[in-house]
């Protein structure tokens, strides 16, 4: 392995780790805010109990999301310094905006929310969790603006003298069509994750209570949570599908190698089928022709890409030739460049993403059916499905990102093929890695991060599991200073409502 491989593994591992926790935070913060809003508006303590219950899970998750996120802010400079030099003028702006506009808000107002239950008026306290919820989503927007620019650079020009990309239009970067498709897709997936999480845990509890003869409690507290989860899953599920379709259409236009690889489509053909299952040596682009497609839907890929069942799509062989003519046959070391990403990863990443997303759909259908018209269910399989479904959107998100990022290879900044696109603004991943940093140094950090993250993930899982099976507290009295029982004048004499 050389520095490039180690640095790629490190970025992949740390980012996939980070994005295990991120979607849950993005989706769960608004759901907790909705629960708390329901409590403030209706005064029904069921919603206070659910707010506190899912709030605890949100905080356990938020901590590790922050911890794994810190690394990302610096990793560009550490392991990818040449990339940072090339793109910094453009790429740094959304990162800095994210910190200024979103990180400050979420960290500050989360502190106010955690510790402010008995210090802030009820509505101000509620506004704090809404500020957190909005800021987590805003943060996703900025970081996706940065990532979308790497997939489809806009609003920039290449400065030959300095050998770098330079920003010309921040508006174009913040309205990049890739961003406008990636943001809804990512956010919908995050809401799908959180909806599945809430519905899954609540369904398990509902079943458990019904079987223990406490159907009233199941109906009173957990059924509303299941219903809320199902509503969120249905809306976000539709959002995921629609935005995914939009994204795929853009990808065919803007990153044809990614989509051709994702379909193991070797030759340019018309009326292209959508491959559901394929076998063969799915490795590098060179093996494409040896792949056998077992199960296909005729014309479906052409339709997905263009809206026309008979449309012609470019295959990897032609794309490789076209890219070689445009960007060169060999790299700086005289090695031939493959412009086609790893077929196995892109082909299966795409299918696993879609496949795992169906886990949420299964839970949504079942949970919707068993809770219809005020019913609760004691069917043990409903509880088991609830638990099993929780993992699926996490897996779908991971595979989706692995597909998106590995499908961009060999580029770290993919060329924008649109006519009048930004000439010269592209960079091979091999040219982006730090040159002064030794392989041993990056290997050290790779091992350190992987081990530490591994240990933390185990603790995270045990904490989440432990708190989930604890369930809602049986009584949660209104802790706010608006409660007549809590005299604000003597607040500083009472124990803190929350302390680490």
């Amino acid at each position, binding site marked *: 392995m050389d520095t490039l491989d180690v640095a790629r593994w490190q970025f992949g591992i740390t980012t996939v780790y980070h994005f295990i926790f991120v979607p849950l935070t993005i989706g769960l913060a608004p759901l907790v805010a909705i629960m708390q809003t329901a409590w403030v508006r209706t005064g029904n303590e069921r919603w206070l109990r659910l707010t506190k219950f899912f709030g605890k899970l949100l*905080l356990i998750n938020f901590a590790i999301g922050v911890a794994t996120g810190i690394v990302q802010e610096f990793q560009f*400079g550490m392991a990818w*310094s040449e990339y*940072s030099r090339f793109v910094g003028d453009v790429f*740094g702006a959304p990162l800095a905006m994210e910190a200024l506009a979103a990180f400050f808000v979420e960290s*500050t107002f989360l502190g106010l929310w955690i510790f402010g239950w008995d210090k802030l008026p009820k509505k101000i306290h509620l506004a704090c969790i809404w500020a957190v919820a909005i800021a987590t989503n805003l943060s996703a927007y900025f970081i996706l603006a940065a990532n979308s620019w790497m997939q489809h650079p806009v609003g920039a020009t290449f400065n030959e003298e300095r050998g770098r990309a330079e*920003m010309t239009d921040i508006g174009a970067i913040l309205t990049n069509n890739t961003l406008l498709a990636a943001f809804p897709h990512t956010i919908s997936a995050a809401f799908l994750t959180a909806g599945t999480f809430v519905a899954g845990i609540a369904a398990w509890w509902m079943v458990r209570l019904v079987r223990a003869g406490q159907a009233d409690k199941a109906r009173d507290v957990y059924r509303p949570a299941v219903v809320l989860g199902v509503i969120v899953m249905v809306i976000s599920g539709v959002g995921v599908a629609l935005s995914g379709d939009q994204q795929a259409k853009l990808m065919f236009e803007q990153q044809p190698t990614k989509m051709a690889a994702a379909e193991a489509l070797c030759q340019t053909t018309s009326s292209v089928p959508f491959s559901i299952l394929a076998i063969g040596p799915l490795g590098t682009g060179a093996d494409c022709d040896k792949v056998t497609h077992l199960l296909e839907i005729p014309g479906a890929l052409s339709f997905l890409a263009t809206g026309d069942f008979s449309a012609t799509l470019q295959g990897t062989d032609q794309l490789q030739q076209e890219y070689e003519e445009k960007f060169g046959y060999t790299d700086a070391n005289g090695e031939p460049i493959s412009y086609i990403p790893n077929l196995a990863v892109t082909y299966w990443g795409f299918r696993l993403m879609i496949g795992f997303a169906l886990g949420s759909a299964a839970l949504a259908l079942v949970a919707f059916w068993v809770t219809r018209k005020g019913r609760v269910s004691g069917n043990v399989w409903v509880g088991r499905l609830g638990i099993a479904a929780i993992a699926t959107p996490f897996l779908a998100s991971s595979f989706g990102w692995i597909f998106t990022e590995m499908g961009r290879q060999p580029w770290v900044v993919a060329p924008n093929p649109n006519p009048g696109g930004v000439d010269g603004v592209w960079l091979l991943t091999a040219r982006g890695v730090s040159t002064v940093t030794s392989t041993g*140094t990056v290997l050290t950090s790779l091992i350190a991060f992987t081990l530490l993250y591994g240990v933390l993930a185990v603790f995270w899982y045990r904490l989440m599991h432990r708190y989930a099976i604890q369930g809602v507290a049986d009584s949660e009295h209104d802790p706010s200073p608006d409660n007549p029982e809590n005299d604000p004048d003597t607040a500083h004499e009472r124990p803190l409502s929350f302390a*680490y």
Partner: protein
Amino acid sequence: MELTTVWFLLIAVLWTGYLVLEGFDFGVGMLLGLLSRGDRATKDRDRRVMINTIGPVWDGNEVWLLTAGGATFAAFPEWYATMFSGFYLPLLLILLALIVRVVAFEWRGKIDDPRWRSLADRCLMVGSWVPAVLWGVAFGNLVRGVELDADHQYVGGFWALLNPFALLGGATTALIFLTHGAVFLALKSDGDVRVRAGAFAARASVVTLVVAGAWAVWAQLAYSVPWTWAAVVVAAGALVVLVVAAQRRKEGLAFTASAVAIVAAVVLIFGSMYPDVMPAFDPANSLTVTNASSTDYTLTVMTWVAAFLTPLVLLYQGWTYWVFRKRISADRIPDHTGLTFEKLPALSTPDK
């Protein structure tokens, strides 16, 4: 004023915010082991008093670092690239420390078990000591200059970063943060912790004055420009005030003085570097505000964003400090509410 200079100043401001605010967070973390006494339960109570003085604010304080990092990337990409790839291993240690610190804060109270808490406390202490020392080492090297080649790449290696001047810088930041944390605790807590923190600050401030003073004078004489004498004088004056105020237990004044000392230190550090952002041993290879910067367009866009958002951040962070302005004492710490890994809840009727 040139936008490049504006951004140099703004990054100095972000670092000032980070070091002043996280300075006492680090100090509190470092003092967890030093100021808690008695049997296990009393010790834990003391530690919870300390941790909760910064409970609602430490996360927001840490964001100043992420923003300083992001702003450096946006405004001076060459600086960002050279510094973080060059100082790779020290930065790795800082990141590992910050990671364990974050999760220790949030997860400490989640499990009601003395071993779990003691593990979290060790993470908090290590997570505070390591960056407190290493940030000083890093800034010491920035002031002193480092070995950059003609492509502005750092080629000095890891061990060159551990020179006497930089190590004294590490000792300086560690001591300043320890004292800053102690005066913060004296200001924000009540009872035993307040008394002990006051006594600790009284002693630590003297050592800090000597070590930090020595480092500042060394920096000024060896690596700086005439006008930064003003910063050295202000820092020295603030440290003297800090010593006197700490002896007399004037908690508010002592905290103000330690904060002013940190601000003066940042002025000295950034004043010494300017117009370089990363001085090289061979001045021809130095990264300057000009050759490391982004384009005028990027800087203009970012200036608007920063001009609009930075005052807002100061406003709502200031409000947070106001909301949580009351002192925290041991009798206000609630009982542990954490669960244990062992005990599982049983429902009244067993599951069929």
